[in-house]
Every structure is written in C-alpha cells, then in structure tokens.
C-alpha cells in the first residue's frame, strides 16, 4: 500500500530463531546490544560482523528483506559517517585542505559506527521483529515482567494495550490510505505548498482517522466485554511458554560472544575505538 513498513514486520518462517521462546529472545536481544557496544577494536568488530551474518543465515530471512528494512537508516548512517570523518581529531593526519582536517581515527571511527548501527538494526530485527509475531512478543514481555506485578504494576494491562496497539497498526494504515484516497478524489492537495498549507491539508485526513479509531476502540471494548474479558486477574493462558534446552543454548551463545569480545578487546592489538 501507500506506506511501506517492512521494518518491524514479522516474516513467516520455521528457523531455530523463529521457534525460540520469546522471553529468551528478548533477553538475547538485550545481551546482543550490550555485546555490540562492548566491541572496541578491529578484531572484535570482525567477530560481530560474523555473528550478524550467522544470525541472518540461521534465521533464513532473505537478504533482500533485510536490505529493504535498512533503507530508512541510510540517512542516519551517512550523517554519522560525515560527522565522525570531519570532526574527530586524532594523531594521524590523512588529508588536509584549508580548514578541513581528516584523521585516520576519524575514518576508522566512522566505519566502526556504521558497522555498529547496521548490526544493531540487523540484530534486533532478526532476533526479534522478523522472527517473532507481535502476539508472542507481548506475551513474552508480559511474562518477563511478571515479577513486577508484586509491586502493583498493571503488567497485564500494559501488555494487552501493546498487543492491541500492534494489532491495529496495519488496520489504521489501511484506513489512512482509504481516507487519503477519498479526499484526493475531492481534489485535496496533499504534500505540496508551504508548511502551514501542508498542516492544513492534514485536517481532512486526521479528523476522520481519529473518529474511526475511537469508533473501533469502542467496538473492540464492547466485543471484549461480550466475551467476558475482565482484566488480567486469574486469567489463564492457552499456550504456556516453556523453556527448552535449546533456548538456554541460544541465550548462552550471546554470553559467550560477549566474553570473546572482551578477551579480544584486551589481548588483540589493532585499532581501538575511542568510545
């Protein structure tokens, strides 16, 4: 449709990662992100790249899908690279022209940052969003946060809200599309003119959209009440999550990876990242 949202979209599959327990995947993502920020030199970054490639291969998600999801990131990557190359100062001058000084450290940092951001995105999307259905994800999150229930935090309600919000994203996108078409059919001019004009042009789209969202919310709550929904207390689950040996191994891999990277950081020579 009009809006393309491949980022954060579930991609059907039956790989090891798809089958892993969502709780384990959530923890693994946190571990992986930590590991990514631990990497400080050439060799540890090389290991990171290898791990990302391994993740993609194991998940069996087509590389085309992943590169498509990366597109919105290009601007950020370019910006980061430029910032690092031109502003970072170091010891080894590579290029000098007027006020422009480019240092080897700047170039290296730029490369490292690009790798870091890219792997961050690949890691989170491959471990979580591409391979976990939104429902499984919120389910996992709810159960991970279960201990917080003791502090009177409405964990179930939060995760129900999240599930519903996620469920309605595609519906609302479709709705926006329809309303936009209807207003365009009446000659609405969307996306041209100055800022004020553009903001004004959004009114005929936003008002019907909000009204339909409220209407949907109302209908949904009625439908839920008709099916006797009354919050999380005493509610049982249809599918109980069970931790398997494979899941422990999966999360363990990331701990091992982290340990390896720390060792490499200490013992292997090579260019070291400033931050």
């Amino acid at each position: 449709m009009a809006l393309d949202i491949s980022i954060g979209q579930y991609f059907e599959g039956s790989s090891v990662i798809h089958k892993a327990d969502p709780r384990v995947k959530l923890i693994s993502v946190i571990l992986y992100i930590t590991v990514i920020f631990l990497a400080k030199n050439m060799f540890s970054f090389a290991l990171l790249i290898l791990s990302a490639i391994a993740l993609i291969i194991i998940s069996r998600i087509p590389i085309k899908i992943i590169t498509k999801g990366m597109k919105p990131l290009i601007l950020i990557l370019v910006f980061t690279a430029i910032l690092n190359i031109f502003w970072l100062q170091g010891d080894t001058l590579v290029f000098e022209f007027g006020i422009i000084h480019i240092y080897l450290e700047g170039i290296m940092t730029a490369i490292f940052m690009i790798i870091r951001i890219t792997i961050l995105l690949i890691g989170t999307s491959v471990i979580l969003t591409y391979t976990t259905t939104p429902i499984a994800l919120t389910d996992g999150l709810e159960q991970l946060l279960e201990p917080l229930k003791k502090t009177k935090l409405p964990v179930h309600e939060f995760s129900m809200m999240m599930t519903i919000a996620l469920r309605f994203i595609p519906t609302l996108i479709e709705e926006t599309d329809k309303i936009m078409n209807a207003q365009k059919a009446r000659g609405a001019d969307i996306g041209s003119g100055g800022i004020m004009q553009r903001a004004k042009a959004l009114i005929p789209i936003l008002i019907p959209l909000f009204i339909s969202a409220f209407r949907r919310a109302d209908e949904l709550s009625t439908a839920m009440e008709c099916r006797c929904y009354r919050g999380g207390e005493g509610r049982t689950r249809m599918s109980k999550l069970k931790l398997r040996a494979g899941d422990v191994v999966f999360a363990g891999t990331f701990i091992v990876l982290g340990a390896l990277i720390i060792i490499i950081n200490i013992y292997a020579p090579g260019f070291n990242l400033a931050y």
Partner: protein
Amino acid sequence: MSIVELKDVNFVYGQGTPYEINALKNINLTVEHGSITGLIGHTGSGKSTLVQLLNGLLKPSSGQVLIDGTDIWAEPKKIRDIRFKVGLVMQYPEYQLFDETVRDDIAFGPKNMGLDEEEIKKRVIEAAEFSGLDSALLDKSPFDLSGGQKRRAALAGVMAMNPKLLVLDEPAAGLDPRGRREILGRIRTYGRESGTSVMIVSHSMEDMAKYCDRILVMCGGQLMMEGTCAEVFSRYNELIEVGLDVPQITKIAAALKKHGVDIGDDVYTVNFALARVAEFMGLSLDQIEGRLHHGS
C-alpha cells in the same frame, strides 16, 4: 466521443515484489456519454481497482485511460483536474466527512477547484437537493446526522464538483431497503437531469437491473461481459457459473422455460416479465394485472 475509454489496461499491485498481484488484465471498454453503467463482479475481481484508475488515484501499469478523449496521464501534473472531471464516491463515503458543518464539508470539493463563493454556495444547495439532503441539515455538524443522511452528505460532496462522470463504489452498501431505493433513485435522477454519466459498482443484481442501462461484468481481473441488462442477464448460465447471481425474476423466467413456458431469456424486471407473460397468454397487460389483484 465516449466519456471513458480504456485501452489494453493492465494493473499490477506490488510490481517486482513477491506479493505481486495482477489485478487487471487487458481491459478494453468504452462508456458512452450520459449513460448509467453498472459494474458487477465478486470481491477481488478488480472492480475497485478499475474505479480508482478512472480518476487517476492509481496509474495503469500499462495501457491508456482516456476520459473525454484525452489520456489522463498525458500530463501527470494535471491529474487533479481529472479528479474534478471524474467524481469518485468511495465505499462507505460517510467516513470521509470532517468539517464543522455539512455545508462546509460539501463545499470542500468545489473549494479545491478554486470556484468563487457565490458559485460554491449555489452548488452546495443544488447538490444537497439532488442527494435528498434536507436543507435544514446543512448547518449541523456532519457527525450529528444519521447513517443515511451522512451517506447523502458525502454523495453531495462529490456531486457539488459537477463531474462529467460520477463513479460510485457500492453507494447503497449497508443501507436498509428503503435507503437503497432512495439513494439509487436519486443517483439515477441526478444522472438523467444533469446529463452526467454515471457508473455504479454493486453486488446487487436487482439494483443493477432496475437502475442501469448497461452492465459490465468483471471476473478475475478481466472484463467478462458487456452489454445492455437484457444482453447480460440472458447469459444466465455463465453468470451463475462464475458465482454471480441474476435477478430473481430472471431465475423465474428460466424455471418457467424448463416447464415449457418460454417468456424469453432477457427478462430482468418484474414489469417486463408481466408484459411477456401477458403476451404468452394472449391477454393484455391490464387483464393480467387485474387477475393478479383479484387473486385468480
């Protein structure tokens, strides 16, 4: 010259992705000025896609869409002018209402056309009249109207642009029988009185038979049939085969034929059927109606 002409039109959704869908295949058709055309087909047959091609909301993957003899994509920058020429009323149009008063909402289209205040005022009143909207409702908020009234307000919003072709996607969906009759009757009257060509998308064969001059039948992205109501509904068996229906009375005529009473294959309204029955029995129409009312 015809109001609409499609030449070898193809349309593919998501071209180049794994989710490619060929929604329209080699469509060739013409719609004459001032006619009321019905577009039938079941869900997913490409009706809504076709309709959105007519006012340039979608661009054909290949082929040409001619409105009033000019290719609408000859100058892509002027596509907005085409939208004023071809008024499209989408499905459930009441969900597009947004302004503070019904009057302002109906005026949205004409305002976008850049007309002056006087002209806009005149058009709003005209359109409200055509769509059967009580003028007392014009200063109310569109959200205070009933479902049927909202539908009419939305319809008036498109009529007020004085399009040359009015395209309606399921204009009677979700209305009760009286609401259906009213709104379809209004649309037909509007077409006849203003000389606007009208195209109605619908599932209801009875409605099509009653309100349209010509019928287009879509099936699997292709144009399957094209002709007058009599021509299309006489191909009874083909329609049933692809999962579409024919008017009840056409079915009755077919059943009668099986029992040796042939009143023709092209029967699609009750009055027409009565005339044929009278002819068959060698009686006048008045005699038949007299018998009907006296229950003999």
